[in-house]
């Protein structure tokens, strides 16, 4: 241990290799409810060569590495298992180059998502993926989780906006995946890396695509007397050939919580609200806004309101994006789920979810990316009450299975991490998982990067028993 720390400190500096109890206990968690993380030394590199050095030192000492961004992940992806070396990327946070000729920006992975879009806005561009956590989460985390956000409905999630990556492999080699041009020669290793949850290596530079700011934006708030009416409106909009920039639904419970929290002007008496945004040129935006309003009314919308000003629009979005913060008024803890179902199944699945919560005697709230069928049931609980978290897990399992049963998948944007490993075999066959494991091993033959994540036990890089066996006493 001392030798490992000494090597790391000589490669970086004393203050950028932390091993104090406070740091290690902080780093043992991310934004998920999962315990069981045990952190080894926590390193804060400032450039690629330091990341490379850390990788090599970890390898020499037989340690795994876990990349970490802001730690806002909800599937436990950044949780260190078995006392690995944690590589915290937050000090690599420079926007290196905004290249308007190629319409890309080269950034370091520690850049905060919202900082990037703020930086680009005056130039007439933005980075399209806008997770609700965008004020704190990093581009590296977005890449690793292939994150989405409300505005990914029309624009696509992170992988559509990452054109090239500099990576450090777990073996310490530095390479570049993808080019700024069309990637239809060579394997799309860039595409394989995005969404790999830190298991294929560490991204040290990212070239992101710049999206032009649209001149016209229309934001609509539609109120409904039932969640079903809101869900049906969403699938009707898509079925009618309209792909809005965003379509977000909130049910009554969350709407009330949000309204008390930020006063965004949401109706308190609606069973559900639909926040829909269309972007583009003035004429088309008006047409789409009109058609969405009509489809809402046809589905029984009790009120349709269009934001009159940028301030009003910003406030409506602030409500949506702080939804999770608003929960604290009701219960101290929440478990945020993430599944995807076919859009046409939304209304039925939501009903099932309310039933499941009732059966487990839990409060559930729904706030979700309705446009792409991406559900986010929020289960509220109090961790201090014995048995509540167990009920939350049981309800979560029922919800996942209900989504799989209608042709859905396990995760739309939070990833698998440690959260859903155990369900992978319900979605995929053994042969499917074997091929996923092969992809992983092509990048990381020795299973050194973030082992114990994504693939279920029984697949080579998932087996962290060996790592767990390291006696914690050895580490301090």
């Amino acid at each position, binding site marked *: 241990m001392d030798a490992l720390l000494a090597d790391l400190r000589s490669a970086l500096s004393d203050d950028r290799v932390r091993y104090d109890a406070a740091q290690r206990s902080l780093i043992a968690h991310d934004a998920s409810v999962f315990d069981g993380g045990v952190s080894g030394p926590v390193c804060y590199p400032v450039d690629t060569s330091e990341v490379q050095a850390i990788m090599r030192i970890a390898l020499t000492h037989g340690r795994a590495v876990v990349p970490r961004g802001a730690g806002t992940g909800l599937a436990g992806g950044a949780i260190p298992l078995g006392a690995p070396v944690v590589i915290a990327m937050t000090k690599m946070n420079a926007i290196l180059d905004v*290249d308007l*000729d*190629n*319409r890309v920006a080269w950034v370091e992975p520690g850049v905060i998502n919202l900082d990037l879009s703020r930086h680009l806005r005056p130039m007439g561009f933005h980075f399209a993926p806008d997770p609700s956590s965008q004020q704190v989460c990093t581009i590296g985390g977005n890449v690793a989780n*292939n994150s989405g956000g409300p505005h990914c409905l029309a624009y*696509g999630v992170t992988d*559509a906006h990452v054109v090239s990556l500099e990576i450090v*492999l777990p073996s310490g080699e*530095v*390479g*570049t995946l993808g*080019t*700024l*041009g*069309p*990637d*239809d*020669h*060579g*394997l*799309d*290793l860039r*595409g*394989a890396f995005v*969404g790999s949850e830190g298991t294929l290596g560490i991204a040290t530079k990212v070239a992101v695509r710049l999206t032009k700011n649209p*001149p016209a934006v229309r934001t609509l708030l539609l109120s409904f007397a039932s969640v079903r009416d809101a869900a049906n409106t969403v699938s009707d909009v898509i*079925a009618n*050939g309209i*792909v809005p920039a965003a379509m977000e639904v909130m049910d009554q419970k969350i709407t009330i919580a949000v309204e008390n929290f930020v006063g965004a002007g949401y109706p308190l008496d609606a069973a559900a609200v639909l926040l829909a945004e269309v972007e*583009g*040129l003035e004429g088309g935006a008006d*047409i*789409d806004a009109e058609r969405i309003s009509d489809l809402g009314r046809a589905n029984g919308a009790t009120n349709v309101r269009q934001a009159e000003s940028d301030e009003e629009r910003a406030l409506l979005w602030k409500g949506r994006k702080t939804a999770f913060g608003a929960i604290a008024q009701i219960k101290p803890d929440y478990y945020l789920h993430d599944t995807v179902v*076919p*859009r*046409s199944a939304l209304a039925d699945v939501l009903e099932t979810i309310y039933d499941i919560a009732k059966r487990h005697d839990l409060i559930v709230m729904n706030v979700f990316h309705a446009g*792409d069928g991406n559900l986010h049931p929020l289960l509220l609980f109090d961790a201090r009450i014995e048995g509540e978290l167990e009920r939350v897990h049981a309800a979560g399992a029922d919800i996942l299975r209900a989504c*799989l*049963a209608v042709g*859905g*998948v396990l*995760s*739309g*944007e*939070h*990833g*698998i991490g440690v959260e859903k490993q155990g369900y*992978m*075999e319900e*979605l*995929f*066959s053994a042969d*499917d*998982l074997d091929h*996923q494991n*092969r*992809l992983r091993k*092509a990048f990381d033959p020795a299973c050194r990067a973030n082992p114990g994540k*994504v*693939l279920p036990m029984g697949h080579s890089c998932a087996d962290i028993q060996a790592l767990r066996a390291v006696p914690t006493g050895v580490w301090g």
Partner: protein
Amino acid sequence: MGASVLAIDDPVLHEFAELVGAEGAVSVAGGRTRWEAGGTLSPEAQVVEAPTGIVSYRPEEMTMQVRAGTTVAELDAALAEKGQRSALADRGGTVGGAVAVGESSVDQLGRGAVRDSVLQVRYVSAEGKLVTGGGPVVKNVSGFNLPKLLTGSLGTLGLLAEIIIRTNPMPPASVWLRCEGLSPARARDAVLTPSAVLWDGGATWVHLEGHAVDVRAEQKQLMTLGSCQEVGGPPPIPAHRWTLSPAQAAAFSASEPFLASIGVGRVWASAPQPALPVDPVAELIGQRTKQLFDPASRLNPGRTP
């Protein structure tokens, strides 16, 4: 626990897997429109055909599940009936071929890239097994991204049997303009989301798609910047694909005819592109991938993506 929900029950796919088997060099022929892509197939390879037919089309979900041997023309006809289209270009080939090559359409900026549109793949592995990667819905981060890996892999990692692609609404209006006295960069900057901006070293072509009122407004705007005429479509496209950065493509010059796709980095030129520099680490990962997926090199021998 029961079987995985993505378990394959389509007997046609299982027949295809049996046809491919677990031994001997093998390749799939689509429309043979890109038969030489990535090199010449070793002569000893047995050539099979992928199963055909649309399995399920859900326009309201914007998804299409189709067997790999189905022609892009058939796909397009089915999509057109519901006012939709996909990122795949009809070059006379099959859906499987288009995905295996991964080459996007001239309208890539409007229709999206092929690699972004493949939601789920089913393929026969080198061991003769059917494997599913990805999933049937439009947003999915459940596990490693095999669809990305297979798209553009020229059938060297698995032989595509069935694909689910994302579809898109057909824009209500579409206009191709040919402009003189208008630089491609200026044209690109002047419009919000062109479906294509092409440049042959002299004239600039712009493909505008969307609501009629928007298309008219942008057309008017372009006409004030240069001398633009409505034309039926893009100019003839030279044979050889070059891969450059968007900036390099915009600055391309050659004595022979060429066409540069602005904002994409694609140039179609009259001569083949000199070998591209290869990142050694990417090459290493690629070799290991091939080794892990097809240790005996039986899938499309002679070809390299």
